[in-house]
């Protein structure tokens, strides 16, 4: 084998290696894109959340118009209680193992929302318990 042939072979090898590297890079890109898509699916994109929001507004509109005016006070108390589902956010902030500022904020949120949840549902039950029919 002469030196020219060796040179030629090494040149083809080098281009092959370069091609391979390109393909690996492409694969890696595809893989990372796949991960991106998966995380997006897990957290839901803004449009689906917004769709839920708008539809829920309509549900709320029709359900609340069907509430009898006599029960508007219990309605306010119970909506107040269920809006404290915001406690979910507090729980997530208070949940991690490490103690930090964010965890304290979470604790405060959980405490305040609990006042509302217990207070709201109990006062609603108290009010509703008073509504009696003619004997």
């Amino acid at each position, binding site marked *: 084998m002469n030196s020219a042939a060796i040179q030629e072979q090494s040149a083809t090898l080098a281009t092959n290696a370069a091609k391979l590297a390109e393909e690996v890079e492409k694969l890696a890109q595809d893989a990372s894109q796949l991960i991106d898509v998966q995380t997006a699916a897990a957290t839901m994109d803004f449009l689906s959340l917004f769709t839920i929001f708008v539809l829920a507004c309509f549900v709320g509109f029709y359900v609340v118009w069907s509430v009898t005016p006599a029960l508007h006070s219990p309605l306010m108390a119970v909506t107040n209680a269920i809006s404290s589902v915001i406690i979910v956010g507090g729980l997530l902030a208070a949940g991690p193992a490490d103690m930090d500022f964010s965890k304290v904020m979470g604790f405060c949120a959980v405490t305040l929302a609990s006042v*509302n949840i217990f207070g709201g549902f109990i006062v609603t039950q108290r009010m509703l318990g008073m509504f009696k029919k003619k004997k």
Partner: protein
Amino acid sequence: MSAQLTGFAYLASSVLFIMALKGLSSPETARQGNRYGIIGMVIAIGTTLADPSVVSFELIIAGLVIGGAAGTIIAKKIEMTALPQLVAAFHSLVGLAAVFVGIGAFYNPEAYGIGTFGAINTGSIIELSLGLAIGAITFSGSIIAFAKLQGLMSGNPITFKFQHMLNAIIAACIVMLVITLVGGQTEGVFWSLAILSFAIGFLIIVPIGGADMPVVVSMLNSYSGWAAAGIGFTLSNPALIITGALVGSSGAILSYIMCKGMNRSIVNVLLGGFGGDTAAAGGASADTGDKNAKAGAAADAAFLMQNASKVIIVPGYGMAVAQAQHALREMCDILKAEGVEVAYAIHPVAGRMPGHMNVLLAEGNVPYDEVFELEEINHEFATADVAYVIGANDTTNPVAKTDPSSPIAGMPILDVEKAGTVLFVKRSLSPGYAGVDNPLFYSDNTLMLYGDAKKMTEEIVQALG
């Protein structure tokens, strides 16, 4: 718990919340509805606690126990007359909780999977700042509403020059800060946003008069919902978004109903300056000097009602203040035993919050099927022999129909003047909250019963017995 199972659990709690509201369409289904609401909340909390990122439970349990105990005690002890203050106070807590969640998310975004400190995803930082701002406004606004309702501060509107301009400037600053925050997430900007939002909450509620508080409380109810929805977007949590939207629309509808009950626009209420200042009524009462109001005694009222075949009771906030609901029900029991037909007529803005009067009457053991809304009963005054107006005034004032320049012009009123005799239980002839003189006091078929609502009703009960 798998992501899918979590999703289903949150969906279940959202559906239960919808059913809780649906239950309120009738007093018979309402109690069951409330139970659905409680189950929904337990599912939502349980699902979150099962989240793999929630690993430390000490603080959570402490918060639940402390908050739960406080809430339970307050809810068991509260007087039904103080219900509006209670609801305002509760709204402030939701608002503040939203603020805390917002701060927590800003400093530890990893816990919510929305990025890292200082580098939160653009969408999430917008949602987060909106949740924070609305929460802060709900908090400070509700504190003012609470103070006005509780009598800790004067119910008079507090107005000053350039008030609306100041509010507009602050609102513009808030929008600017949100935009700045998208560009660079510095703590300074974040806290400025929080502080300005607190400030505008105070400023938009102070000019609103004490008796406009029913609208304000409903509006803040709505805000607390939008705050929850804002945080729901940040957390990508459909349960929070759905609940927030339900509560938001509920509060908006209640505000609308209240405004319609006063024939005023929400803008008119929010701009404030209405009510609490009786000096404005000087012109209206000037021409009443030559009129005489007939005064009667408890015995006259007892005689009139005993011989009537139909009596309609018109309760107002004055009844609640005097705690006259029990005496009132006792009086009606005697009348019913004597074969008199008794019904109660409720104006949409009677009391200090939507539906307040119904709860107070229910507390006095008045059966709910004897209590009617304005549209249901208004045509019946013409066939009633006696209208017994106790602690109400503006809601019966015929000026609303006759004088287009009056502050209450166009407000739907209870047509008590069509009844055979109108009995007004009142301390004096002073005008009501709107500052408008009521010509009904001087009408031929009106008898004024001067005195405390409860004492007068008790005297009538004695006279009947």
